[in-house]
């Protein structure tokens, strides 16, 4: 890779109570590319995004964005840095008391002193980009899941950020919406020169747009590489995940006593 790095994650440790979620994760995310972070459910992918966004503080290790250590910044500097980041939440997280238009205008109104007409132009541009210019009067409750996510995407790019974090953008979408989102993420990345981090477990969609892929499991990076060479990696956990095999190193069965003994109730459990 010849590109300069935009986000660097160094030796990240994080635990929640007793449970260790990250045990020394390291990643290099290049500028202007789409980097995917994949892994089975419950491996802390969303937690990783929150660590990158500075909402959670790691037990050890650093996250550098454009050379700045996110967790060493003051609250004010952190909020300034976040203006350069957009984040697309799993649920969309639109403000339910504001209309679609106002939702997209929100970051502009808060962070800029632009006149009303210019805000209108910018908002319509962003809504046009996600194809929902006609829905600007609607309230978030009136939108379908896919539309809500597209509005959230328009809001995430409202301030023309350098970095966009996507948290499970494809989850719970019908194939049409998935296709639309895949196209949008790719197009926006190319058109705006964004650096994108996509967290997902939808293999097909993610691999089709990612330039580079990290697979995490058990609190560590299990494999990384371009989508083409990821498949041939010989780690069984990665193979199981990429091929979607039901049983493997990640077991199909939740930890349980022997089936035969349990059926006959030899251990006297209810």
């Amino acid at each position, binding site marked *: 890779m010849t590109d300069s790095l935009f986000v660097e994650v160094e030796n990240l440790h994080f635990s929640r109570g007793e449970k260790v979620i990250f045990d020394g994760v390291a990643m290099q995310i290049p500028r202007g590319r789409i980097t995917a972070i994949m892994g089975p459910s419950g491996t802390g992918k969303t937690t990783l995004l929150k660590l990158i966004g500075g*909402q959670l503080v790691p037990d050890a290790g650093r996250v550098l964005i454009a050379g700045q250590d996110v967790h060493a910044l003051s609250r004010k500097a952190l909020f300034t840095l976040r*203006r350069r980041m*957009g*984040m697309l939440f799993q649920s969309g*997280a639109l403000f339910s008391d504001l209309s679609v238009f106002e939702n997209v205008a929100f970051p502009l109104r808060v962070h800029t002193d632009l006149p009303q007409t210019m805000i209108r132009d910018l908002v319509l541009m962003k809504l046009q980009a996600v194809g929902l210019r006609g829905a600007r009067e609607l309230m978030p409750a009136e939108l379908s899941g896919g539309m809500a996510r597209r509005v959230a995407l328009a809001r995430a790019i409202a301030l023309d950020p350098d970095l966009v974090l996507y948290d499970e953008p494809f989850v719970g979408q019908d194939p049409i919406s998935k296709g639309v989102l895949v196209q949008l993420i790719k197009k926006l990345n190319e058109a705006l020169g964004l650096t994108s981090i996509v967290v997902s477990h939808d293999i097909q969609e993610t691999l089709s747009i990612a330039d580079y892929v990290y697979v995490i499991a058990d609190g560590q990076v299990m494999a990384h590489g371009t989508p083409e060479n990821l498949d041939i990696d010989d780690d069984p956990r990665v193979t199981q995940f990429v091929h979607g095999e039901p049983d493997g190193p990640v077991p199909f069965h939740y930890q349980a006593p022997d089936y035969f003994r349990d059926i006959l109730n030899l251990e006297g459990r209810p």
Partner: protein
Amino acid sequence: MIGRVMRLGQRGCDVLEALGRAGLFLVQSSVGIPSREGCYLWLRQMHFVGVLSLAIVLVSGLFIGMVLALQGYTILVDFGAEQALGQMVALSLLRELSPVVAALLFAGRAGSALTAEIGLMKATEQLTSMEMIGVDPLRRVVAPRLWAGFVALPMLTVGFSVVGIYGGYLVGVEWLGVFEGSYWSSMQASVDFIADVGNGMVKSLVFALVVTWIAVFQGYDLVPTSEGISRATTRTVVYSSLAVLGLDFVLTALMFGGFS
């Protein structure tokens, strides 16, 4: 045995920690210069917690004033002192019933709604996304609600008192036939603006702060699931009712108990 003591200690530490969080939360969200936008957000919350609570508070005030007059009359008439009805109605309302009952109604009507609203915003990641956009939800979401509650409840308490006193007038004078002049003059002779109205307002301000604080904190601090929201809403009503009644005793002892 040792296990039980340890659990008790753990529980004590948890309570202290929650109190600390709540205190920090109050300071972080209430300190700061309000912006133009902030004023408008405050106005919107005033509408929500103040104007929309007006009906229930005023109707309750009317009935409580009427009941007070009815009960007071039957007792006072035995001593031939029904002229003192106005005094009795006004003092019991101003010193005690208005601040307390209005605060309890406010906790049920507005407090629980504040908790549920903020809790739902947390559950749908609206607060997190606000933070990611670079806006502090404490300032944008919590502060206007806190200040609106702090202003609205004393106003509602005043309304409660006024309506209650006129309710007492309706029953005492119009129905039971207490002489109108003595209803008002016994009231005016015994009610002191600073000592009675003023202390009632101080009580109401304290209750307003405590109830709103509990409501927004419970909303902000809850576990973002549907069960968590319902539990937090219940907690808001229970904690604020207990806090209001407990604080009422302390404040009454300080104001009217004769320690000075």
